[in-house]
């Protein structure tokens, strides 16, 4: 017997309560594989490519594009492929596998994350019936010039009625839409997007400061050796092949975290659940304002080169508008800890606010030349302030201090990273 699986509106962060399905990229009857991008979602974080986590055939599309629906709403159904025994019982999957569902119901998040969402926001099941209309059209027909114009106006094409050849949206339709005063609200300007993102950040950060008893520790870490090692390693390399300090720091943090699982996990329902994978989210500032926080999975198992690649790729994709080149839904959820690097912007140190349901955030300050005292001698060296904000419900000061200490030691042996 093949099973029918619900594909739901994913939660892409604790600050997300609802999302808009912008476009289906598949239609009923399409075969999909784990990892395929099946839809484009518009969230407060911008457009995101939504992946599917199961192999199978799409049997139903339940939500029309351009509806805002609560997190957890069933968007589509999928019939599992019979030739995929591993996905028949997701319970017994390799813990390191990227598939995240833990029950028969398909979730798009880390178990803890999804539960927190449902706990906090109670997705309304009644909306399911309201949106149970089939849609046959999964792409918008629009002429090249209409697409160009819509792009310039930041206008979502699928809400414009097409009157052109094959009912395509044409230039005239865009002009009529823009000139219609009632539609002014539908034109998402950059300012609106920014405002949405601002309010999402506000929501998450307020919740965090309200609920999480933060405590903060910092440590000035000497990085003379790390810098020397980087200089040697990079000297004969093309700029594209060079390793930056941030990659070294990420790797050191990830390896240290494997020994301090108390900082790497989720707090929900008054309980801490450690996460086995070290999935580190990085705060990336967008040029247009606001931030996105995509994650790199299993950082402790990646080489420095792989980390550099992941960072470059992620920064590019954070700013991309093209389907398939944007951040994917799986990259925006399930981070077990976050890093914010304000040193790049010249700040000495940053005490971050924890992104729930995580329990810690690590802030990196700028690299500074300082006078270092060795015995009776003063030496000019380089140091960096690392700050740890942690959730006191889960961690105590002692553990946090040990973590920083251990991280400082790791950075004295860069060749081992």
């Amino acid at each position, binding site marked *: 017997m093949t099973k029918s699986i619900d594909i739901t509106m994913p939660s892409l962060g604790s600050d997300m309560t609802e999302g808009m399905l912008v476009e289906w990229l598949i239609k009923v009857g399409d075969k999909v594989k784990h990892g395929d991008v099946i839809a484009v979602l518009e969230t407060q974080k911008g457009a995101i490519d939504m992946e599917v986590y199961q192999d199978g055939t799409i049997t139903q599309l339940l939500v029309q594009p351009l509806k805002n629906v609560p997190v957890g709403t069933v968007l589509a159904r999928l019939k599992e492929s019979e030739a995929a025994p591993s996905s028949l019982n997701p319970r017994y999957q390799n813990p390191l596998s990227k598939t995240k569902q833990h029950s028969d119901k398909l979730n798009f998040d880390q178990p803890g994350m999804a539960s927190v969402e449902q706990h906090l926001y109670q997705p309304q099941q009644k909306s399911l019936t309201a949106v149970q209309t089939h849609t046959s059209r999964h792409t918008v027909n629009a*002429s*090249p*010039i209409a697409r*160009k114009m819509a792009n310039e106006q930041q206008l979502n094409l699928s809400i414009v009625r097409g*009157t*052109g*050849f094959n*009912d395509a949206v*044409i*230039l005239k339709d865009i002009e009529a839409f823009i000139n219609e005063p009632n539609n002014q609200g539908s034109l998402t300007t950059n300012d609106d997007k920014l405002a949405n993102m601002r309010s999402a950040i506000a929501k998450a950060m307020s919740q965090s400061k309200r609920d999480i008893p933060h405590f903060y520790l910092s440590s000035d870490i000497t990085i003379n050796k790390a810098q020397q090692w980087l200089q040697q390693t990079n000297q004969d390399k093309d700029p594209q092949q060079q390793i930056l300090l941030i990659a070294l720091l990420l790797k050191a943090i990830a390896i240290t975290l494997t020994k301090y699982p108390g900082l790497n996990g989720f707090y929900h329902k008054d309980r801490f659940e450690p996460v086995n994978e070290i999935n580190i989210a990085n705060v990336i500032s967008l040029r247009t304002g606001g931030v996105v926080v995509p994650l790199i999975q299993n950082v402790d198992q990646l080489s420095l080169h792989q980390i550099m690649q992941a960072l470059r790729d992620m920064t590019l994709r954070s700013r991309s508008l093209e389907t398939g080149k944007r951040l994917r839904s799986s990259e925006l959820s399930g981070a077990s800890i976050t890093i914010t690097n304000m040193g790049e912007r010249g700040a000495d140190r940053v005490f971050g606010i924890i992104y729930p349901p995580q329990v810690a955030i690590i802030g990196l300050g700028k690299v500074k030349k300082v006078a270092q005292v060795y015995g009776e001698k003063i030496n000019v060296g380089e140091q960096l302030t690392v700050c740890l904000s942690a959730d006191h419900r889960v961690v105590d000061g002692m553990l946090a201090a040990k973590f920083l200490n251990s991280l400082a030691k790791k950075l004295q042996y860069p060749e081992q990273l």
Partner: protein
Amino acid sequence: MNTQKTNSDSMTYRDALRAGIIQSLNEDERVFLMGEDVGHYGGCYGVTKGLLAQYGDQRIIDTPLCESGFVGVGIGAALGGMKPIVEVMTVNFSLLAMDQIVNSAATLRHMSGGQFNVPLVIRMACGAGLQLAAQHSHSWENLYAHIPGLKVLSPATQNDARYMLLQALQDPDPVLIFEHVMLLNTQGDVLDGPEADMEKAIIRKQGTDITLITYGGSLPKVLKAASALEVLNIKVEVVDLRCLRPLDKATIIASVEKTHRAIIIDEGWKTGSLAGELSAIIMEQAFWTLDAPVQRICTQEVPIPYPKHLEHAALPQVDQIVNCVQRLLNTEL
């Protein structure tokens, strides 16, 4: 555009062609005309009637039925410093001279490293509509427009019929002129001179809603369709290509950028057609200005039929153009 209109005369396309030939014979003694039946018979389509008596058999030369031979003679004469006008009765028979045209006329300047050019003009009748059946009705302009080294003209108006030959004779390289048989009896204004260089396309009608691109025998049909559409308040712009090689891309693109839509009307077959080439040019250079897919109206993919109703059905017609425009603008009733 029509600055000389005050001095215009009305004449048939045939008479305009003849007037052009007479002027070129008068102005340059190197010019002579040869071809099948151009002398005693006065031309298969009556274009050269009376010229033999006027200019004598040294300048108006009847040739045997051997296209390859007399086109080759024309090339030789051009190489020798003459300015021959070779008439090939119809484009259908020019296939017999294709080797001379493609392998010799078009290549000699290149093959000689620029030492020898071939200032030859070849005139030929083309097109369907007179119930002359498949072997006398085809449109091979596309084949010649494919070939570097040639210039290909398609006069669609009386004025172009009158002056394009003179322009062609000024060119140092071989020029082919296609005279559509359905235009011969049409009447229209002839001005004091050409409206533009021979390689320039001309906007025959200004419009803002859609660009119809055409040439030769299809131009009157397109203008008729444009008038019918004007009644429906659809403003059509008509581009007359005039020159099929080289194509005046700038004029085509400027028009499409203005109207955002294009239909190409071409009496050739669609597959591998000039219409396909034009569509590709628009796609390459004006894609982001398009508001609808480019359409092509071409001849049905059959040898041109003999029966009148089938011949009519095979060729692009006015109602077809009107319907296509309405479909593209989504204004069908």
